[in-house]
């Protein structure tokens, strides 16, 4: 075996191990069309053979919002910072729905695609990225619905809504951050579930519990009033400042320090980086364990 041409230029060298930070970004860029095609496929397939079709995108959050309004708003009588209950819950719900859907779907990446991954190589990150794109479209539909309700309500006098136009401009950034955060958590979990299937169980109800640690069904001001000393701890949940800022922008609820948002961005970046590193490390050999 001559190894004389070791110094020659090769397009790809496959080695047993690679560094933790050896992430195939070039490959991901090359496969960007696949991300889009997978996104298109997800979207086309999502509601095949359902009667109501894409209407489900709207029905799910709408019904949840109605239930929240009735249970938490009317029965429990939780205050909603002086804005109409329905819009208050809808704002939280639309954001949370996006986050939880991204998280749940991306966390199953390896297990759901093991058939495909076992037969052909492409950068595995393509799959979670396309999932998040799909969910963004779902979000967009729900968001438009939210805007419709918002405009109808705000047109009435004394609606209690004070939209903050400057903050509204931040919406794309908030959405991006939420998507990146969900992607980060999702791929961490997906990397771990290749070895530990129990995590898949944990995620499903963990997301449910997480929702109650997030101001979806109540307002942060309740925490601030009842347990002011715990507010800092509460704000460590990186989703909380995102939802709060979103509500502040569109509904005009009281806003908390931007410092919390900065912290949330830092946490998001950290989670995402850990996720990508863990995911890239797992994708090389997961076929042997899955």
């Amino acid at each position, binding site marked *: 075996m001559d190894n004389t041409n070791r110094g020659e230029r090769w397009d790809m060298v496959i080695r047993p191990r690679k560094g933790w930070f050896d992430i195939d970004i070039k490959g991901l860029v090359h496969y960007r069309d696949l991300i889009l095609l997978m996104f298109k*496929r997800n979207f086309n397939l999502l509601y095949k053979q359902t009667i109501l079709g894409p209407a489900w995108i709207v029905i799910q959050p709408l019904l949840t919002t109605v239930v929240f309004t009735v249970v938490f708003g009317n029965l429990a009588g939780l205050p909603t910072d002086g804005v109409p209950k329905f819009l208050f819950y809808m704002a939280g719900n639309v954001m949370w729905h996006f986050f939880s859907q991204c998280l749940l779907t991306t966390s199953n990446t390896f297990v759901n695609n093991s058939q495909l991954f076992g037969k052909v190589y492409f950068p595995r990150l393509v799959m979670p990225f396309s999932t998040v794109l799909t969910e963004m479209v779902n979000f967009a539909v729900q968001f438009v619905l939210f805007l419709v309700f918002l405009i109808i309500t705000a047109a009435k006098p004394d609606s209690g809504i004070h939209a903050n136009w400057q903050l509204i401009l931040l919406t794309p950034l908030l959405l991006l951050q939420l998507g990146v955060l969900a992607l980060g958590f999702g791929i961490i979990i997906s990397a771990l579930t290749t070895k530990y299937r129990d995590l898949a169980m944990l995620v499903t109800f963990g997301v449910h519990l997480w929702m109650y640690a997030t101001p979806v069904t109540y307002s942060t001001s309740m925490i601030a009033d009842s347990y002011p000393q715990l507010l800092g701890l509460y704000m460590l949940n990186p989703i909380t400042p995102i939802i709060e800022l979103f509500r502040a922008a569109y509904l005009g609820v009281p806003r908390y320090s931007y410092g919390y948002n900065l912290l949330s961005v830092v946490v998001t970046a950290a989670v995402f980086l850990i996720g990508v590193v863990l995911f890239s490390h797992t994708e090389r*050999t997961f076929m042997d364990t899955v």
Partner: protein
Amino acid sequence: MSNRVLEVDGASKEYRLGMIGGGTLHGDLTSWFARVRGKDDPNVKIGKEHLAHNQRFWALKDVSFNVDKGDAVALLGRNGAGKSTMLKLISRITAPTEGEIRIRGRVASLLEIGTGFHRELSGRDNIYLNGAIMGMRRSEITARMKDIVEFSEIEPFIDTPVKRYSSGMYVKLAFAVAAHLDPDVMICDEVLAVGDLAFQQKCLGKMSEIARSGRAVLYVSHNMRTVSQLCNRGLYLDTGKLTYDGTVERAMELYGGSSARSVSRNLDEVPRYRDRGDTMRMLAIDFENTQALEYDQEGCMQFRLKCVSHIPEPRLRIRLILQNSIATPIAMTQTEPFEVAAEEEFTKRVKFPLDGIAPGEYIIKLSLIAGTPRGRSTYYDTIVDVSRFIITDDPAVNSGFIWNESIWGEFRLKPLIME
């Protein structure tokens, strides 16, 4: 040496059997905690010591070879020799345990027909999706769409969901995409087994064209006819080691004779399914009066099977299941029952008349079974892949016709009788 497109340098792949982690976080944590405290691992099953040495095995050990432009390389070997593992390493599906693989250019691997096809999508959408999965840009696919559709011969159905396709159409479409990927190295694993003969020929033609046009093909198949037609180089893998690298003719000889040259084969070491072989075990087989395990039509195979039994059994039989070259069972036959005592080592000489088996390549599966008269049978030991053998074509026996197994099947019935 800029002709080189692929270098495999000392590639090895180790698999761990059984212990692929506890599978649950709790299991791994308790094992780890026990280790920390210096106690026995609570998750290790007691009484399985004899499996312990089996828990790691090398699917590939120190394999090195090069592929240059224009090479059409056949990768031959018995089932479990490591061919598929090798292809998986080159396709980057899993990483090698040791060694290095260097690639220049684009690799298209067709380890399975229609990878990533989605049943609900139309043929055209699937071409895009499948092409993109294999690394083509969208614009490249659009540019080649016409050629792909033409090659696949399914133009009228291109906008129909593939779930309505026949399996033949499916294969045609999938191969068409891969063939137009314009790869520098094309890897094919047994994918042409489906599809009609004419299309098979067309695919082989396309692959030869790829090789001739200065690219490389790496081909795995048990179908020697396609191998000899396509390949100009042969590699022979035996239990994870590359034992031959040279002409395709010699590699095919090794492959055809690899079971034959070891006219006696040690069956004791062959891995079994679950508890098969615990109470009774086949130890070795000797094929007699043959050099290459090639038999004439209507001939007779003869072998001696050495076994050991730990329990008494009054009605033991040796059962033989005939399988075709891709391990699909075709027929079964067995011996008369005989008696064995406990802790007895016995050797039986068996004759297997080959009447009616069509020319081609077959695999023998052997079992030690006992059956009650009411039809219940107990399997003591089973080996799926005891040996391959070949029945040579003899047109005289077939009334002057050359047997065509892809159309006529693997069994030759008695002649029709005209009144």
